[in-house]
């Protein structure tokens, strides 16, 4: 309904690491030419309501597949972390008044393949990895997430 999916230009696809290609191949992604489907924050949801979120048909159909999503990295809860929160807009969470309790509901949690190298939190970044949808509690941090991009890489 929102942005139409476009396959990435070939040049960018080739920029992907060999390992990503391998893992994508293992996931039986339909065609390697469509290395990662482009998702947007708006495109993830059919609706966001008080009593719950409805994911878009497209997001649900991309479960388990390689996706690319652009957003802003929220300052990680811990340095040396392998996961971070990707948000639609740069976050203004008050470090003195709030906690993870005040995250917007439409965050995406990104689990990286490698340890996080902090980026400029003002710069929109793109993340590629496998899309997971459904509640999951991180056994290490206790952080509960609904939408994740796992085995992910930060692409510029």
């Amino acid at each position, binding site marked *: 309904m929102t942005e139409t999916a476009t396959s990435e230009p070939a040049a960018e696809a080739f920029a992907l690491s060999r390992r990503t290609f391998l893992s994508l191949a293992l996931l039986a992604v339909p065609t390697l030419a469509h290395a990662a489907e482009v998702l947007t924050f708006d495109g993830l949801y059919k609706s*966001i*309501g*008080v*009593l*719950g*979120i*409805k*994911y878009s048909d497209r997001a649900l159909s991309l479960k388990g597949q390689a996706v690319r999503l652009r957003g802003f990295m929220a*300052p990680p809860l811990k340095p040396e972390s392998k996961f971070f929160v990707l948000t639609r*807009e*740069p976050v*203004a*969470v*008050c*470090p*003195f*008044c*709030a*906690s*993870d*309790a*005040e*995250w*917007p*509901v439409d965050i995406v949690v990104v689990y990286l393949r490698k340890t996080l190298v*902090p*980026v*400029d*939190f*003002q710069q929109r970044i793109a993340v590629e990895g496998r899309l997971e*949808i*459904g*509640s999951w*509690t991180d056994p290490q941090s*206790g952080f*509960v997430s*609904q939408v994740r991009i796992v085995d992910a890489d930060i692409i510029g």
Partner: protein
Amino acid sequence: MRLTLSPLAVLVAAVFSLPAAAQTIYPIDRADILSGSRFDLKVEFPGIVDPAKVSVTINGQDHAKVFGKPAELVAREDGKDVSSLLLRDASISKPGNYTVTASDGTTTKSVEWTVYGTPAKRAAKNVILFIGDGFSIGHRTAARLLSKGVENGKIKGKLAMDDMPYMALLTTQGTDSIITDSANAAHAYTTGHKSCVNALGVYCSRAASTLDHPKVETLTSIAKRKGMAVGAVTNSEIEDATPAAMVAHTRRRSDFNDIVKMFYDSKIDVMMGGGSPNFLPKSTAGSKRSDEVDYIGLFKQAGYALATTKTEMLAAADGAKTTRLLGLYNTSNVDGALDLKFLKKGSVAKFPDQPDVVEEMDAAIKILSRNKNGFVLMVESARIDKYSHSMDPERAIFDTIMLDNAVKKAKDWAKANGNNTLILVTADHSHPVSVIGTVDDNSPEAEMRNKVGIYEGAGIPDYQPNDEGYPVSVDVPRRLRFVFGATPDYYDTFRPFLDGEFVPAIKNADGVMVANEKYKDIPGAVLRVGNLPNKGSRAANQGIHSGDDVILTAMGPGAERVRGQMENSDLFRVIAEALSFAPQGKAAGKQ
């Protein structure tokens, strides 16, 4: 090692054999305790104690005799080499001064408590407590200027909250710091005890779990025991600190999932705000819970009407049989007045049918007043604080006007309904904000800073208030210059943020808080180097609270106790006395 010490050192070491010399007693020294209210007695010993040598006395009497039950001795608290004595749900009914003495056989420590009663005769039937979160004098002055205007040197009309007979200055510091937060501050109002930053309904002890700290009873619990109805309405998330202080007992205000359970267990009659994700079982998409408990379902089963929009709220309130309401209007905070009524930014597109705080309060009063024993209602305009953190003056001022509109409506209701409602209007803490003049776009000067009018150059701003007291436009040529005294680096745009709430600063890749580049190219924007920490764990990405006093204005029966300078915790006592929570004298015992 000890053999090498001098005899004096050995003696000193023997007397102070443990690193922290004395035990800590909760409630703490100089605590004021409402007669009959419940509290947890906790004594923390600095080491492991011999139970046979431990004694805790109240005015010389064994505590077990005074409280009717002995405290439990925890030999190794949280598995550490320290013992504690703990007695949950203690209370003292006889007013007076109490000396509590705890000894482990070696060291002795005493604290003093004052237990107070209340007049035998109940003065007020209802209490409405308005809290403007972070609501400071600068906000108040600005709200007056924008919503009333000035003519011939006089404000054209009074704010409803200004037109009240009693006023006091409240000091807001807590047990740990001269600067408080909304948890600790609201806790003082709802319990009458002082605590520390981030704490709700507990003293801050050494307990490892945030839920294990010594508790004190909340206003909700006491009022419910007296058969009254209780409500809390806000435009923050309902689990946020101020509304949570009505029911919660936790050392950490961010325990949102636990706080939802505490709301449920409290049997509070009306609760409204945002923050729905913590009510949804974790398998529901959009949930923030870590368990499968469906609190929406539980509240409904317990007889609560559920409203997720203003339309549903109005219908529920009109239902003559509705006595309990859970209103959740946003997944996050309910949008503030400027977005809700004028700009339609924020989350208004996603949640187009949210009530404002005035409408929430109106619905709450309708429902709560069905209880013949009266009600206690806390009404919060929460985003004065949030918009002051984000350094967004117009949004903060609009939500101050909204607070005043709610006060006006409550005063009208009280007048039409027996004049037996105590109305209190205050803030929980302040922000370092100030009205310093105006900005005039029509000034011939080139740079924005030189378009700032000070002293006689400030003149009178151009706002045109509508019937609700909101200026129909905030982007007027001559507008208020409202400044923040403690800031991160940010771009000063000299203009209202018509496209959405300001985000002043963001961390860069090196972990340094820097000005948000998004505003760099706004015509006239200049970089302001901040004066708050920009590195480390306390780096500030926004404005902060100040330790300045806050104003309490009051009217109605019991309001005459509001005067001079008071501790914030004294506000609880004003309520307790007006409602005669602990009647003394002839009528004592009769409710």
